[in-house]
């Protein structure tokens, strides 16, 4: 009887180990393609980037939001560590950079929410902004052309949407360069 129980336990253990191994295999295979993609994706090399001020276009985006987008972008792009130099618009030194890429943002839509509404209702008053993000190389060839949205939904200041936006742009930069 005792021997029989031991056999059952050992069989169960073996099955459990097999399942674990199977899960690990499946997990590994699921992760592998994405890793392969990132390795296989064509990454652009550039030592410096210049960031242009946000073009409001026809969107009535307040100046504090425009400035906040710009300053947050500078900060987040610097944080990526992908470039030796992050130049501001108009910086004279950028002219000497050999493989300079330029980041331009154009406002597409803007909804200024309310911090009060967010805090009171937690569902209303979200601030949202969508901007077209274009990164071009020295010759003007487009490297990135995407619409990126920044939002602040529940808690936080309205300007938090610009932080969210710049974090997303920094991720695109990390994936591209």
């Amino acid at each position, binding site marked *: 009887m005792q021997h029989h129980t031991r056999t059952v336990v050992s069989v169960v253990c073996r099955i459990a180990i097999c399942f674990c191994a199977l899960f690990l295999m499946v997990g590994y295979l699921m992760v592998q393609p994405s890793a392969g993609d990132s390795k296989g994706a064509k990454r652009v090399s550039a030592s410096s980037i210049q960031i242009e001020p946000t073009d409001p276009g026809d969107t009535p985006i307040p100046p504090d939001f425009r*400035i906040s987008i710009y300053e947050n972008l500078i900060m987040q792009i610097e944080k990526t560590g992908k470039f030796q130099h992050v130049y501001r618009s108009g910086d004279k030194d950028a002219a000497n950079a050999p493989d300079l890429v330029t980041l331009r943002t154009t406002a597409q839509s803007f909804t200024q929410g309310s911090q009060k509404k967010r805090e*009171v209702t937690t569902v209303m008053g979200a601030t949202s902004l969508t901007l077209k993000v274009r990164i071009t190389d020295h010759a003007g060839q487009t490297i990135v052309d995407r619409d990126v949205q920044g939002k602040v939904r529940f808690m936080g200041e309205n300007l938090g949407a610009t932080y969210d936006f710049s974090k997303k742009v920094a991720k695109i930069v990390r994936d591209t360069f």
Partner: protein
Amino acid sequence: MRMQNLIVDVPVATNSRRATRPRAWVRGLFLLLVGAPLMFSPVLAHGQAAATPSAAPSVVQTDVKLVMGGVTVKNNSLGTLSVVGSSLQFATAKTKVEVEASSILDISTNEDSRQDITGVAHLATAAIPYGGGRVLSLFSHKVDVLTVEFKDANGGYHGAVLVLPQGQAASFKKQLVAMGAKASHPLAEDAPANK
């Protein structure tokens, strides 16, 4: 008799003139010495003001929050904003940042579309139990937001967002525009006059 008197009087008069000549000369010299500095004193005062622009700030505001763009000053720092000489200065206890009025590309206030930006106050109210902070935050404190776009010595574009007590931003804008700062939107009080 009259003639005699006259004859007598004339030398006396000439003598007295001779006697008073040195006195008048001394008086003139004295007046010149005392008067000349007084005459030139306003010119000197103006000259001093022009030579030392960092004399006395013309517009000062304490408890200003630099939300971002302070270059050497950390974001969300509290400090004193002032117009000193021909530049805008934001100073904290540790450091300061100065922007020349002539290097300001655009300056604007949000008098019309005010918004609540709560920093330390928000955290303080959030700490109140049973959602008391939320109730408190309904009593919004209205603020002025001053945005300054400027270029650095290398030509690089910068932007700074400052939060001031209500009704204080316009005076800074007015002062800086008078000193050569550019503003894409006219001053609030100038707008009706232009219409």
